[in-house]
């Protein structure tokens, strides 16, 4: 600290055990060591993702390391007791530093060192001595003036043998030391006030325990509930649907949670979200009603991101948004079983429904609903649009009795692809996979009806047989010995249709490959099969169109032609879809929910106060330079008045040297000193 200042006093404190402890606690080496340990511990906490579900950790590290990390509290480092101990050590070390240095600092702020010995001033680096011309009084006056012009506070002391003019500036630098370090005690204090220590204490004393199993808050046991004043500080999250009310928030603790009750209720009156053209949210805000029965207060306020609500020491933030249980009207189109009718189902997001299907009972779980799906347009979009909205979609899972589930993402309206309208339905068996899409071509009225009808007719073997017989009859009308083939051809047709319905073109290919014939013959066979099957399916398709009321005298339109091939491509892969129905979103009522974050952090102002102290301290300490000047006038042995001039700066010695040199030159000019 006092690297270039004259020694003040020699320390002559006797070495006691107490001072050894203080020496250790206040030592710079300890402080730096704690800095490094805190830095490393904090860094570990950023590399190892904190507060993830424990199952994820077990998968990642294996049970052994998981236990080990858990014991060290590495999944929640910043609330770990050893981390608190580190902070406490830092605070202690800083306190000891202040305790030991503050009195000296305060003294240095006031002390002008007017009693300095002539010898010690002469020993200061760069000290100069001149023979003084002229009278001493005016010299003292001029020196004082010069010092004060340079911004130095000046004091004069007449000793018996010498007069000392001492100047000092930038003394607030010393206060900076004290403020800065005190700030670093106050800031961790704020952290500790707002830490989860009280939860840890309640758990340790057995008064509370976290709940790991309950799905609904109402099922949570008494030990997992916290009344408004149990905790000193907390941060929780809660999601409220429009029109609903809540008076609690959920605190996540390790792999479980606690319910924190609030002394008031929050009602979500309305939630609004605005989007940019890109579909990204532009703003979201909630109209909240706070109902406080204790204080008989009720008021309404809108909160948004960056605009929280402050009430009774609680802060309510707009954190996120989601679906609050939108009401969906679904049409369940059964596959494979033409006798089954379309089932209309009313459900809600996060609702469940058991369905009887061709594969037995399956549970339909509605996961989410999205009103808009905006994606970047393809380069060279004809309308010059940058973004395309694919409309609404919903995500659901279909779970079988063994608990296996597939996830689906179905869009409500057809989207345009290569100029044709299709309904898309994404499917995946694993949540981490990308969706694979089923493309259902839309018919002339932009519905799935024709596709579903076509599919049903292909599976209606009686009708298909009738059509097959009719088609074969007309095709073989003029063929010789037609009656002999007819039965065989129809049989082949129906066999192929069955195979197609079961496994698409692949199934037929597998069938051909099983035959023990040459490759050339296989190709011929495939060609023939294709022709036969195509004839039948085309006839069935025409029948479907006829049912729709399309005039079968006219040739079919390009769109209808394209539909046929698209439908075949989709039907051929239908067996991979995994679920024996298509869930179509017919209508919806959007209900949004607002994700709120509710916090009570009384340490916040302590933290700000400490931060402010630190900042002021740092600026005083780093940008102010405590500088001292001394001018001593004395008489040498011969009675000649002499002037000794010296100076020191606590920082930036190079800068001070330059400044000191300037003052020396000014002094020489002012007092007319000989160099």
């Amino acid at each position, binding site marked *: 600290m006092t690297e270039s200042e004259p020694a003040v006093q020699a320390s002559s404190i006797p070495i006691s055990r107490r001072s050894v402890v203080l020496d250790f606690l206040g030592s710079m080496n300890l402080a730096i060591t704690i*800095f490094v340990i805190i830095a490393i511990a904090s860094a570990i906490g950023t590399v190892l993702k904190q507060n993830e579900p424990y199952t994820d950790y077990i998968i990642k590290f294996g049970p052994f390391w998981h236990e080990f990390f858990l014991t060290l509290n590495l999944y929640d480092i910043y609330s770990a007791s050893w981390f608190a101990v580190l902070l406490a050590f830092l605070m202690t070390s800083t306190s000891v530093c202040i305790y030991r240095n503050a009195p000296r600092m305060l003294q240095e702020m006031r002390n002008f060192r007017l009693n300095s010995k002539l010898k010690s001033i002469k020993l200061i680096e760069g000290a100069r001595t001149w023979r003084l011309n002229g009278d001493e009084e005016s010299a003292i006056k001029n020196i004082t003036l010069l010092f004060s012009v340079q911004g130095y506070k000046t004091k004069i002391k007449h000793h018996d043998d010498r007069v000392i003019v001492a100047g000092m500036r930038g003394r607030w630098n010393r206060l900076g030391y004290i403020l800065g370090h005190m700030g670093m005690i106050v800031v961790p204090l704020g952290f500790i006030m707002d830490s989860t220590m009280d939860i840890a204490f309640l758990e340790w004393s057995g008064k509370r325990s976290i709940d790991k199993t309950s799905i609904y808050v109402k099922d949570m046991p008494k030990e997992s509930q916290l009344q408004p004043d149990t905790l000193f500080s907390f941060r929780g999250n809660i999601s409220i649907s429009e029109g609903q009310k809540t008076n609690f928030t959920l605190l996540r603790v390790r792999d479980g949670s606690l319910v924190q009750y609030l002394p008031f209720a929050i009602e979500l009156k309305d939630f609004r979200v605005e989007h940019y053209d890109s579909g990204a949210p532009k703003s979201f805000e909630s109209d909240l009603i706070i109902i406080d029965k204790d204080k008989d207060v009720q008021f309404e306020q809108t909160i948004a991101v960056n605009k929280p609500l402050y009430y009774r020491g609680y802060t309510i933030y707009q954190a996120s948004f989601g679906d609050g249980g939108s009401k969906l009207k679904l049409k369940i189109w059964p596959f494979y079983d033409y006798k089954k009718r379309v089932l209309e189902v009313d459900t809600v997001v996060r609702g469940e429904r058991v369905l009887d299907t061709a594969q037995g009972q399956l549970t339909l779980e509605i996961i989410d609903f999205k009103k808009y799906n905006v994606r970047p347009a393809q380069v060279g979009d004809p309308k010059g649009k940058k973004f395309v909205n694919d409309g609404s979609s919903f995500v659901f899972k279909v779970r079988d009795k063994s608990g296996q589930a597939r996830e689906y993402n179905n869009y409500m309206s057809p989207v345009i692809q290569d100029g044709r309208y299709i309904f898309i339905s994404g499917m995946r068996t694993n949540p981490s996979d990308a969706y694979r899409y089923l493309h259902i071509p839309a018919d002339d009225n932009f519905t799935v009806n024709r596709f579903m009808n076509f599919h049903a007719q292909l599976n209606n073997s009686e009708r298909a047989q009738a059509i097959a017989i009719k088609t074969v009859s007309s095709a073989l009308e003029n063929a010789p010995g037609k009656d002999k083939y007819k039965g065989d051809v129809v049989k082949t047709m129906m066999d192929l249709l069955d195979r197609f319905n079961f496994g698409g073109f692949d199934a037929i290919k597998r069938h051909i490959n099983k035959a023990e014939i040459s490759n050339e013959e296989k190709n011929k066979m495939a060609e023939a099969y294709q022709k036969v099957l195509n004839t039948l399916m085309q006839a069935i398709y025409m029948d479907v169109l006829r049912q729709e009321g399309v005039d079968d005298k006219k040739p079919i339109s390009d769109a209808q032609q394209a539909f046929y091939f698209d439908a075949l491509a989709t039907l051929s892969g239908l067996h991979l879809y995994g679920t024996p129905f298509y869930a179509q979103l017919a209508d919806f009522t959007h209900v949004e929910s607002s994700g709120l974050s509710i916090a009570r952090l009384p340490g916040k102002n302590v933290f700000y106060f400490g931060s402010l102290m630190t900042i002021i301290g740092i600026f005083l300490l780093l940008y102010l330079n405590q500088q001292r000047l001394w001018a001593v006038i004395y008489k040498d042995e011969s009675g000649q008045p002499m002037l000794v001039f010296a100076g020191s700066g606590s920082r930036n010695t190079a800068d001070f040297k330059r400044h000191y040199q300037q003052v020396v030159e000014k002094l020489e000019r002012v007092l007319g000193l000989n160099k």
Partner: protein
Amino acid sequence: MSVTNEVMHDDLKRESFIKNLSIVDWAFAAFVAYGTVYTYHLYSYLMDGYEVGILFGTGLSLIVLGWWWKPSRMLMAAIAFLSLIAVYLYEPAVMALKEKGMSAPDAISALSSLSDKENSKFLFKYFISSTSAIMWMSALYIMATFVYFYHLALQNVYAGKVATAMTWTATTMGFVGLMVRWRESYLLSPDMGHIPVSNLYEVFILFAIVTGLIYLFYERKYKTKTMGGFVLLVISAAVGFLLWYHFSKGAHEIAPLVPALQSYWMKIHVPANFIGYGAFALAAMLGMFFLFIEQARTPNISNQVIAQLLIFMIAMLTFLAQFGADSFSTVGLNFAYALAVCAVFWVLGFGIVRAMRLIGDSNLPKLDMLDDVMHKSIALGFGFFTIATVLGAAWAAEAWGGYWSWDPKEVWALIVWLNYAAWLHMRLMKGLRGTPLAWWAVVGLLITTFAFIGVNIFLSGLHAYGEL
């Protein structure tokens, strides 16, 4: 020396800062004050109370900066002049193209387009659209780096002057680029408008110009241009990244703000942070320069060992990072890549030390001075970095539900802070000087860089805006 009353009088006259201000200083202040009030008059309906506070605070700070560091007045005037021209020309030009049926984004890109001969406007195309200005900045910084090294190698005074002029111009163009970009964001769509410090592309520009500005300050203060080459190396590296980011990822396209960033806090938190980053980067480059000079003078085995360790570490990081970057990377390929990185460092290190010897000790900056500037720069950065971190906490208390969430970015800010706090303790309290602190400053840059971009690339968290 003869003594006259007049001289005595002068030396004893109280030097008042205010009284010493020239007419130019007052004209400058009036100009800034007018600009501030006019801006308030134009846009007050868009601003909340805090933003009005920030506007007037900025005006006041600019006046103080201009008075305290005179050359910055010219810089401000140049930025204002060029930016105002752009703003003045933009509105009618965009309107005219919109009448032709173009959308606002297309109109803006057409105006500065090099390929659209029909619609582009000379000034926008070559100078004052944000992309042109930023390209100028990039080119000038890189050229200035070379010229500074040329000056260092041959002590060519003229080259030194050219390099300084280039750096001033580059800094001006960088600021102009950001100012115009700010305007462009509002022209694209009023709801998209925001100060251009919101993503990695924009803050890299900010980093370059802030570092450049701090360097120019010390260059003038210490009256030497020898430090320029090394300091501008880090700026050139940032520019290199910027160009890559621009051309391979199209990052220069203005994107709307996510709700969390829509706050007045961004206007103060981010710039304060980058004064910190810029000053730390400058200190690290001077530390590196210090070490090279020392190594050239007295080869030292421990320095070599530390250098090898650092190179090894960087190589390891590239080795590991490659796995994340490319899905098709293999161990062998990455190893080769890491080895190439090592080789580059070896060749560079060896070459620079040889070059230093050739230049000669007397032509290189004094180690004491480098040590001094390094210290000052870290002290400057530390103060602003502390402010930035606290401002960030205050912002988090409004946006994320708590002033400190131990989010990776917050934690790394704390680590950076602890690192430089330790550095300053060592220097100020323990009186440590020279080599160890130079190494520490270099390592500090690695930590800072990780906090600046590494966190966004490798760790997830709330600060996800800066993702690559």
